[in-house]
Each structure stands twice: as C-alpha cells, then as structure tokens.
C-alpha cells in the first residue's frame, strides 16, 4: 500500500454487527415509508416484505454475534409465515379487485365508523 499522509482508520477485518443492524434499520425505515406513501395495494405489500427482510437480516446478524442457531431458525419461520401471508393477502387483493375493479387502497374504506 502506498504511504498516505494521514493514518488510515482502523478497518476491522470482519464486519461488525452494528453495521448489519444499521443496514437493517435503514431497510426497515424504507419499508415503512413505502407503506405510508404508496397507494397501490401491491406496492404496499412489497414494502411490507421489505420490512420483514430487514428484520430477518438483523436476526441473522444477532445469531452470528451470539454464536447460536436460534436467530436463523427464527428467520426460517419468518420466511414461512411471510409466504403464507403473501398467498392469502394476494388472494384478498384479487377478490377485492374483482368486485371493485380497483387496487387502490384508499378505496377499501368500507369499515368506516
């Protein structure tokens, strides 16, 4: 490496857990934003999937940190449940679309109190 006039910061050889956590947080926040800001039901769904994956990421990071498998197993279950949720959710969206011809989430306000 060529010598630099300033000392290089200490670069850890491994990726610290905090980095994964921050990344997970960013992805989670982005997912939240998507849920709030988007109009189409499908897009909202995808944002939710993003949030779930962000959480998965942090789970695995902690699993590695603690040296246990529990985190990974939890991720396994999360994926299974996410799959089920997607299946049912999409079925609902399809049904609503059939009767109302809209996938706009603001149009499904029939439970108005």
């Amino acid at each position, binding site marked *: 490496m060529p010598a630099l006039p300033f000392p290089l910061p200490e*670069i850890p*050889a*491994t*990726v610290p857990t*905090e*980095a*994964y*956590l*921050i*990344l997970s*947080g960013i*992805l*989670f*926040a*982005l*997912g*939240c*934003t*998507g849920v709030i*800001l988007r*109009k*189409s039901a*499908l*897009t909202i769904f995808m*944002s939710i999937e*993003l949030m779930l*994956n962000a959480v*998965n*990421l942090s789970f695995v*990071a*902690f*699993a*590695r*940190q603690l040296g*246990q*498998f529990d985190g*990974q*197993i939890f*991720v*396994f279950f999360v*994926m*299974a*449940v*996410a*799959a*089920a949720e*997607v*299946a*049912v959710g*999409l*079925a*609902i*969206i*399809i*049904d609503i679309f*059939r*009767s109302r*011809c809209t*996938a*706009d989430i603001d149009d499904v306000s029939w439970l108005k109190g």
Partner: protein
Amino acid sequence: MELLVFLGVAALSVASALMMIAQRNAMYSALFLVLNFFCLAVFYVLMGAYFLAVVQVAVYAGAIMVLMLFVIMLLNVAQPEPSDRRLGVFRPFGVIAAFILLAELVAVGARYGAPPEAQATGATTAAVTATPLARPTIPPAATPIADHVGAADVGHTQQLAAVLFSRYLFPFEVTSVLLLVAILGATILARKRPEYEDVAGVSVRIK
C-alpha cells in the same frame, strides 16, 4: 475484503430499496425488490448462514416475488399509477418519518449496545437441549469464506436441522398447519365465483 463486499452490497441493497418504493410502475418495483432479496442472500452467506441464503433465493425471490408478479400482471396494475393527490403536501412527512424511525432505532441500539460476544466454541449456549448431537459450532466469522469449504465438522445445514427438529419441533409443526390454512384460504378467496366472468382476461363481477 469482506468489508468491501459488505459495503458494496449494502449500497446496492439500499439503492434498490429506494428505487422500489419510488417507482410508479408496480412491475419495476417488484423487480427491484427481487434485486434487494439477492443482496440479502449475499449478506446471509457473508454471515455464514448458507442454508438461509439459499432459502431466501428459492422462497422469497423465487416463489413469493414470482407470485406477486403474476398478480401484478393478472390485475393489470402495471400502469403507472397516478400521483397521489390526497397526500400532496404531506409527502415530505413520510420521508421525515422514516428518518425519525431510523434515528430511534439507532438510539435504541446504541443505548443497549450489541449483545455480548459469544464464546468461540459456542459450547455453552444457555438453552437446555435434548439433541443427541454435540452442540454444533459455528465457525468464527473471521474465517474467510473459502476456509469453510471442506470443514471437517458437521455441515451447516445439518446443524440447523438438528436444532430445528429438536428444540423447535413444535413451532415447525404449527407452521406447517399454518401453511395448510393459508393454502386453503387463498384457494377459497381467489376462486372463481359464478357471478364473475372473464372480461379481457380479467374476472369481472357481473352481478
């Protein structure tokens, strides 16, 4: 080296996430999400969760997103959706909310810190287990990826399976019931009703 990989893939994942939520076209959003999932798979590999990485690709990217793409195409919502007049002036607030959320997450994380380092052997995990096998060891993260190949000890998948089918057997069974219920539900909800008929490839209610 690992750090560089991490940084690059992380940047890619964040970028794809941003693109996903910003896209007007649902199809594009889905595709960006798929890209995000791939990035996550890479992370899993980096962290040594090989099985999960494969499952991520196979289930999430391969099944779930495909399903969503099917639905997008079925419902023909791939057109760019009109801009949301209702939100209008409040749009920046969503972004601000995201930042607040992030800040809070960081604050909590900083407050409570990272969990303590595990022992290298990992033989002293707290939970009581009835597994007949020896407590599997996780190769330390510092070990380069290449060193994992051909490890003399039991493979990662087997270790995962050992824990899954012993300690988490009950949740496993319950999850299978859950999946069954989901299948039934999806089938019933999405089936064709007599009052619908296909109009231009889309089932439209006729009553």
